[in-house]
């Protein structure tokens, strides 16, 4: 069983605290993604788990064994580096069995392992080449093969796909995930790419400034962002965050003071969140009251008129940006949308699509949501 527990880890470089009181439990066989913007301490955390960086305080337990003071080689884990860290003077085969060799595994078993992992990652044809003679994707595979050759039950990966082009990145995502399932490895995977995180993770730990902002399954994090930071970080395009203000009859969109309320109660300091795909786009109709739209099972539909400022056609869908009271909302609509710049459109959304964040950035409980 390979369970990893990080217990109140702290790390500073000089006076800058980089990882602050971080506690996470990674379950056996889990694919855990450490996600966050660049510089938030993901790599540092991973390197502390690997033993390449000493923690200032806190403990690291692998399978209940405290490894905090152990050297990397005695922690029973493998790592894939962002730069791949292949040995340039060794062939692909020598790179893959490097660890087996220094650990003095006998030749027959070593060759068997080599061919097994080379087959898994599709490198059999390139075993005698040197890294300089390989493409980026092939180098990535060598790094992967080296990491799984020793059959460590825990594998750490630091942005392993960031040097590949988009197409290859997608293929490798699928392959890495399949490999992890097949070998039953526990993987801790670092990335700043939320698409990678959403598509690969069993569980996502979203970090910000050395702390955990939110953790949960990709569905969880997408459906219930706990803070406006998470809301902004996840999704392409990310969630629309609209500043609200007090209006005479309820909260209104800031800058659209004359408009109709979108929520009951005060609005100052609150932020309304709407996923772009949960906003519907229609041709402009005369402005109606709050209950104007057709009622659905999901509750009454809010609707607002807005002016198109940008149209971004992607093929399967179109992202239309529209302004309301100086704030821009992005709407994702299926297929091609023949919207023109400056055109008046009607945006509508159902009440249960609404997320609400307080002045502190934290999610407001649903009970605070009073549809008008």
């Amino acid at each position, binding site marked *: 069983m390979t369970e990893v527990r990080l217990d109140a880890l702290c790390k500073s470089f000089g006076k800058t605290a980089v990882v602050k009181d971080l506690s996470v439990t990674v379950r056996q066989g889990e694919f855990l993604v450490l996600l966050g913007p660049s510089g938030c301490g993901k790599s540092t955390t991973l390197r502390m788990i690997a033993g390449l960086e000493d923690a200032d305080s806190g403990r690291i337990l692998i399978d209940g064994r405290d490894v905090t003071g152990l050297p990397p080689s005695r922690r029973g884990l493998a790592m894939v580096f962002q730069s791949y860290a292949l040995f340039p003077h060794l062939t692909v085969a020598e790179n893959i069995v490097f660890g087996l060799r220094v650990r003095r595994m006998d030749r027959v078993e070593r060759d068997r392992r080599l061919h097994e992992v080379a087959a898994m990652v599709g490198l059999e044809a390139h075993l005698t080449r040197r890294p300089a003679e390989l493409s980026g994707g092939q180098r990535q595979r060598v790094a992967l093969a*080296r990491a799984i050759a020793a059959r460590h039950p825990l594998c750490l990966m630091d942005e392993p796909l960031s040097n590949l082009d988009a197409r290859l990145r997608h293929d490798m995502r699928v392959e890495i995930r399949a490999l992890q399932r097949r070998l039953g490895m526990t993987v801790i995977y670092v990335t700043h790419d939320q698409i990678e995180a959403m598509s690969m993770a069993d569980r996502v730990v979203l970090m910000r400034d050395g702390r955990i902002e939110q953790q949960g399954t990709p569905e969880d994090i997408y459906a219930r962002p706990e803070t406006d930071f998470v809301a902004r970080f996840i999704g392409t395009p990310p969630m629309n965050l609209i500043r609200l203000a007090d209006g005479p009859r309820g909260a209104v969109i800031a800058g659209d003071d004359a408009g109709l309320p979108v929520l009951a109660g005060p609005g100052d300091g609150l932020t309304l969140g709407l996923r772009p795909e949960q906003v519907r786009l229609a041709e402009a109709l005369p402005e109606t009251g709050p209950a104007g739209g057709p009622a659905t099972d999901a509750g009454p539909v809010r609707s607002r008129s807005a002016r198109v400022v940008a149209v971004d056609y992607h093929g399967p869908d179109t992202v239309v940006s529209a302004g309301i009271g100086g704030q821009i909302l992005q709407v994702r609509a299926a297929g091609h949308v023949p919207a023109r710049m400056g055109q008046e459109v009607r945006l509508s959304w159902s009440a249960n699509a609404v997320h609400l964040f307080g002045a502190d950035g934290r999610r407001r409980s649903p009970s605070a949501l009073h549809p008008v």
Partner: protein
Amino acid sequence: MIGTPSRPTRAVTGWLLVLPATVVLAAFTHLPIVTTLIASLHSRATAIRPARFVGLDNYRSLAADPVFWKVMGNTVAFAFGTVPVSIALALAMALWVNRRIAGRGLLRLAFFLPTMLPMIAAANLWLFFYTPDIGLLDQCLGLAGLSGHNWLGDPSTALPCLMAVTIWKESGFFMIFYLAALQGLSAELREAAMLEGAGPVAYFRRVLFPLLMPTTLFVSINAVLNAFKMVDPLFILTKGGPSNASNLLLYYIYENAFSFNDGATAATLTVVLLGLLAVLAISQFVLLDRRVHYR
């Protein structure tokens, strides 16, 4: 915009551009080589007898000259004695000062300091170490209750004394090249090796040393050529003595040319030295190139 000059005009421009360098190179390198070669085929000129063509006579008498073979042997021994040691020392020092240690800058400076001294100054410094009875070496031996020794005057220690000075001076210089190479290596390689279970020795043997091979090639070629061209400390320390025990090829050339006034023999020796240097450089490139992995 200036139009593209015609082909002949461009060729002329090209030749004009390389002309200064060509003239200097020809005047100070190529021409002397040729005149030396010619001089080595002529007899020694004296006040009453001008030089005349003697074919390979000079080479024959050189082959029969026991001093020449003594000097040759000394030079080879000097190369074997200084090159491996100074390279090993250079690598060891570079590995040491490449680590995160307190006072790293000072240490680097200390190791590099001998290189910055002119060889003549260094030799004078070491003269003070080697001086019988009052020198540092004998003083230290005296403290240990041992009697003094005439280090530079004893044929069995004169050459090793020269080697020590050379090693002391060269290894700091070679260290700089290793240090530069080490800093060009990615830290992730070391980390990857560590994660894969390689200890410091395995890392050095399987990763670091092979990756430093281009530097080792460069440094060893320079070291060997320097060893064969070594002359400066002889002027200060031993003058090639006692009885040629520490005489080296270049110093022997100097002696022939300016002490014995034998230009013909000096020219012959020079041709031999040039030939040796060329063979050494080429064979080292060929030999080591097979073991070098460039990225």
